[in-house]
């Protein structure tokens, strides 16, 4: 089995897979180590599929805008898989004046960063999506947002990277990194020691423990997010939806089912049994939330619910890029539950960074070492 490559990527989620794909396209020799049995087993396969710019922190906005302009439109053809990418806009819904304030602030800052996003009133909202209830009084509207299928996209990156010669090994849970003669070199699992000139740690929450072995700390906490999916319904709408309070989000898929995520408010305190499992309270709460927005969906049947851990940072944006103090080491983690839409851009830019030392989009605001005390 191959244990040495130019780049060893720790984590076979969409970040690891997309970076591996873009590296392989540039002719780089890559090994990807996935700790679980399945490629794309963390947030990559558990998220709600948003490919959004609106609602994001301005520090990560340039990267996602870059992806939506340059990568998403042709991704299905490139990966030879149906990513089910829809660019039909995002409505972030509000029901109260307080919501209007939140949304207006978000929209203003995004416009400042060059994004076309504006506030619309309840009637305009229903002109775009006639299924929404009268409780909705306003929304931010970003016409260039959309959604895609996280499962096929993640596994599509994997498939193409593998086809280009990337070695993927699942069931390899990385416990330790080692610096050899001042440079990152070894990636150690209970079974094997892998070596690379560069190492990218893109292992979600587990990144923290792995990086601890080389004395790097990326502060993250976990929070259990939950989603559900209905049986296929007749086609209703194509927009991505969210709410000012982030109580639910989701879209109708190409298949006809509705994928919705949401929260009960207890996310940060929910326990688990070692794997992310649904709590008994959340799905009913999501359903109640959705029915208020979409009375027509009251009779749609839920066929599955699931949960996933979000890797949350204190400021809500990822740690991304080069670890200056350890040559050859790169990180990409703490995507705070919105890593999917941004992933193709992250992978492509990281690949460029690793190969050329440069990126098209400035990543400095997402630097891993940015966390400072408040006074």
């Amino acid at each position, binding site marked *: 089995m191959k244990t040495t490559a130019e780049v060893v990527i720790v984590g076979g989620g969409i970040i690891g897979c997309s970076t591996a794909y873009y590296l392989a396209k540039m002719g780089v020799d890559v090994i990807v180590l996935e700790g679980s049995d399945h490629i794309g087993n963390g947030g990559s396969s558990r998220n709600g599929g948003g490919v959004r710019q609106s609602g994001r922190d301005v520090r990560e906005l340039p990267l996602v805008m870059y992806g939506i302009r340059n990568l998403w439109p042709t991704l299905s053809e490139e990966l030879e898989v149906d990513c089910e990418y829809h660019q039909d806009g995002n409505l972030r819904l509000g029901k109260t004046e307080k919501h209007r304030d939140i949304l207006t602030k978000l929209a203003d800052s995004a416009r400042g960063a060059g994004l076309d996003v504006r506030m619309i009133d309840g009637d305009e909202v229903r002109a775009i999506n006639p299924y929404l209830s009268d409780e909705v009084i306003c929304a931010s509207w970003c016409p260039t947002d959309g959604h895609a299928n996280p499962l096929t996209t993640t596994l599509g990156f994997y498939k193409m990277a593998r086809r280009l010669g990337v070695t993927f090994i699942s069931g390899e849970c990385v416990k330790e990194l080692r610096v050899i003669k001042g440079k990152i070199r070894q990636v150690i699992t209970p079974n094997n020691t892998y070596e690379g000139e560069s190492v990218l740690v893109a292992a979600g929450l587990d990144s923290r423990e792995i990086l601890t072995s080389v004395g790097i700390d990326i502060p993250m906490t976990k929070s259990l997010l939950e989603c559900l999916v209905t049986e296929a319904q007749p086609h209703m709408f194509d927009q991505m939806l969210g709410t000012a309070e982030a109580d639910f989000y989701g879209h109708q898929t190409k298949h006809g089912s509705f994928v919705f995520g949401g929260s009960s408010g207890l996310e940060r305190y929910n326990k688990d049994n070692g794997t992310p*499992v*649904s709590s*008994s309270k959340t799905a*009913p709460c999501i359903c109640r939330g959705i029915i208020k927005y979409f009375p027509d969906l009251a009779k749609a049947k839920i066929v599955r619910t699931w949960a996933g851990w979000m890797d949350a940072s204190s400021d809500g944006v990822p740690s991304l890029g080069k670890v200056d103090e350890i040559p050859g080491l790169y990180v990409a983690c703490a995507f705070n539950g919105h890593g999917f839409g941004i992933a193709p851009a992250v992978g492509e830019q990281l690949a460029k960074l690793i190969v050329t030392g440069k990126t098209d989009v400035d990543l400095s605001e997402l630097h891993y070492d940015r966390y400072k005390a408040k006074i």
Partner: protein
Amino acid sequence: MKRYDLVIVGAGPSGLSAAIEAAKKGMKVVVFDENEKPGGQLFKQIHKFFGSKEHRAKIRGFVIGQQLLEEAGEAGVEVVLNATVIGLYQDKEVVVRKGDRVEHYKGNAVIIATGAAENMVTFPGWTLPGVIGAGAAQTMMNIHGVLPGKRVLMLGSGNVGLVVSFQLEQCGCEVAAIVDAAPRVGGYGVHAAKVARTGVPFYLSHTVVEAEGEDHVTGVTIAEIDSNFQFIPGTEKHFDVDTICVAVGLSPMSQLLKMAGCKMEDDPKRGGQVPICDPYGRTSLPGVFAAGDVAGIEEASSAMIEGRMAGIVAAEYLGYIDEEELKSELASLDEALNGLRQGMFAPQNRGKAIEKTEEGIDISESLLKNGYVADDEIEKYPGVTHKTGIHPVIECTQNIPCNPCQDACKKGCISIGSKITSLPIVVDDSECINCGMCVASCSGQAIFLVDESCQDGTATVTLPYEFLPLPEAGTKGKGLGRDGKVVCDAEVVSVKSMKAFDKTNLLTIRVPREYAMKARFFKVV
């Protein structure tokens, strides 16, 4: 949140048995079942069960279901129907859908007794309407009173395939053939024989090539397969059927245990994905138990014992009985379960080709290939003897754990002895009084009363008959052999229906003497 000592999911044989035991120990027990009627598969089982008295042998499945329900009621068990458990969460929280709402419950202990689901096989046309599971056919016939089809091909010769084939015939369907890819009949020989003698052909080492039809099944082609499961060209056979019934095994419905975080394993011997658990149903999660088919496919009789075990183990877990009591109760249940897990079809013998009976007699090759014991083989078995006057002929040729016949005969004509799997023998010097109790008591319908020495050169054969309409005395027809082919003329001499026979009618037919040991079924032609 509403809390019970014990929440049981599934009101089938194991769930109800567990509930009864636990409630008898003083526990507050609730049983949820998603169906409108309790009893799981029991209420579809119209045949008499095998085993011994303690296994409720010779009682029909649906009656056992009624008995369990009564016992559960007396013990104070709350059985909630139309209650679908949609999830087993952490902390033994059970979420139940009832009507238009969901309810949350906690159990100090939880027993999952959700049973099994039918397996499917694929062949071109397998998704056509008319291809149905044997369990579905049983539900249609025995619960809803709906005929699954007019002419049916059964795929699968295990007990389910055989029993359902017989039921299909009972409700007026024609069974065109029983087909199995295996080279030998999988179920009890007596179940096969009672179908074969009605004229259903068996095709072993055969499987479906294709189901035909545009929008529903209109026919089926089968062909023989070689040892690599490849079709042998030129062996194709076609049947005009409107239904293909699939009886190719069951898979445990263990999803609730898996979602709750029980350690699972894939065990082909137990039917698929099952919880890792001890013989009494203790899973890897403290206080969560599994009982019945969900912990490994067997049959209803063993499921009932497993359920009782789980109920008792749960009682000990919650301090309702002490360890001593647990030990002694489990010891007697172990014995009961071991009694069932004996003989040729015992779990430990699954997949083994057994060639001789425990008595050292060759197993009938014809039985395994064609579904019936050939005429020239039948006399090898100890239940088949000749005598002057009326006497029982017991065509029981495989070692299965079953002994009601021995108790049925008050004159001591039939003996099995202490080993429940032994083949029954006809006791020398015993006197048969023609009461017919043995015929009616045999769950395998394998006992006949024969009088080969009638004055006029004829013989009478009394056979179990569970078809309608019942022919009347004097009806002329044909005697069918074990292979279901016409062997002779026959005339009904008498029809006996008694309460003690429990709906097995005894048909006595007169046949020419030389057919006394050949005619085994009667057909009005």
